[in-house]
């Protein structure tokens, strides 16, 4: 290590200081090795697998392709920052991954959970191709994607039912 820098990141709503880091470190490295947030995974370090997908402000990015120091002043959301509704520790997407068998080895799972959230935030009712395209940057080697697609469809259906119930609920 040679030149070191110190900077502040906003991660999952908290201000976190990164001290004495090498300038060339990626956001992924900073999250995993300096901030104790290993939920974002390191599988390729070149943006080809999506395992390190995080939200940077309003966009889903590969944390391995973001210079950590360049994320100063921006809002980073990792899988550790997800929380469900009504006090549930898990989000509906995470629940659906479990219910539909979308998890095997689990290495791609945090990235895929982030991708499915990102898609459904932008497009609540994706068709099959939109869904496949949205997760096409997340490689999974265990599942063949079948159960992951099923999980995403389940979230769409459950959210649809929930909003239907809301609109039919007592005025």
């Amino acid at each position, binding site marked *: 290590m*040679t*030149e070191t820098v110190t900077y502040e990141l906003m991660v999952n709503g908290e201000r976190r200081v990164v001290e004495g880091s090498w*300038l*060339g470190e*990626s956001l992924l490295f900073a999250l995993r090795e300096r901030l104790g947030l290993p939920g974002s995974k390191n599988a390729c*370090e*070149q*943006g*080809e697998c*999506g395992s390190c*997908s995080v939200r*940077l402000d309003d*966009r*889903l*990015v*590969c944390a*391995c*392709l*973001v*210079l950590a*120091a*360049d994320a100063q002043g921006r809002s980073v959301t990792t899988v550790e920052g997800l929380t469900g509704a009504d006090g549930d520790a898990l989000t509906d997407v995470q629940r659906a991954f479990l219910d539909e068998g979308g998890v095997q080895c689990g290495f791609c799972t945090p990235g895929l959970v982030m*991708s499915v959230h*990102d898609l459904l935030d932008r497009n609540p009712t994706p068709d099959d191709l939109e869904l496949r*395209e*949205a997760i*096409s*940057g*997340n490689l999974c080697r265990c599942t063949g994607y079948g159960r992951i697609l099923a999980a995403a469809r389940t979230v769409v259906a459950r959210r649809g039912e929930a909003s239907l119930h809301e609109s039919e609920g007592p005025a």
Partner: protein
Amino acid sequence: MVEVNAGRRRPSSVVSLTRVPELAGWHREGDEIVLGACLTYADMERGELAALVPALAQAARTIGSPQIRAVATLGGNIGTASPAGDTLPVLAALDAVVEVAGRAGGRRVPLLELITGVKKTSLAPGELVTAVRVPVLRGGQEFLKVGTRNAMVISVVMVAVVVDLDGQSVRAGLGSVAPVPVRAREAERYAGEHTDWSRGRLAGPAVARRFGELCAESTAAIDDHRSTADYRRRAVAVCAARALARALPPLEA
């Protein structure tokens, strides 16, 4: 960042351009569009810009993954000057002009003069790509990319065909078939001469095929781990013919 992660580059200082507003976004100036160097592929994929320069949107959608398209920029694609740079055949076909800023002031360089070799540009030390100017044209635009996977794949070949109905010309940019993006001038001349411009239709289906062959002849493709030179020439011929037939539907023979 990929090269830094892999230890092939060790920056001692870094200048971030992501928050320079002058480099972001795009705007129209008369018959031209000025694309900021920090315009992301996600920005190009949809919306008004995609309607104005459809081939650019089509190319953008083939690049990497949604996560990559959210951060990767047009300026980055140009500066990297990879033979497989996905927007480069489109920019070549559009006769794009690159705006460069440096300590000595700004200059404008045609894209094909800026890119001089495999990952080589004529940018001087301290110079920065700030914007790219492309024309707004009336006519079909097509971008086709061959890869061995349906998404997230480095191209084996790319073909961009742009039709200018007002200027009565066809332009073809080819990628991954030479060290730099290629314009298929002979093919363009041939297509221009064999188009019924009053109706905006190719003279016949054979024109598209011949156009494809001429495009293939203008390549300098090589064998590598992604494909072979023979296949690349074949794929250029097929894709160029298909692209032209989509952009200028042929009159029935």
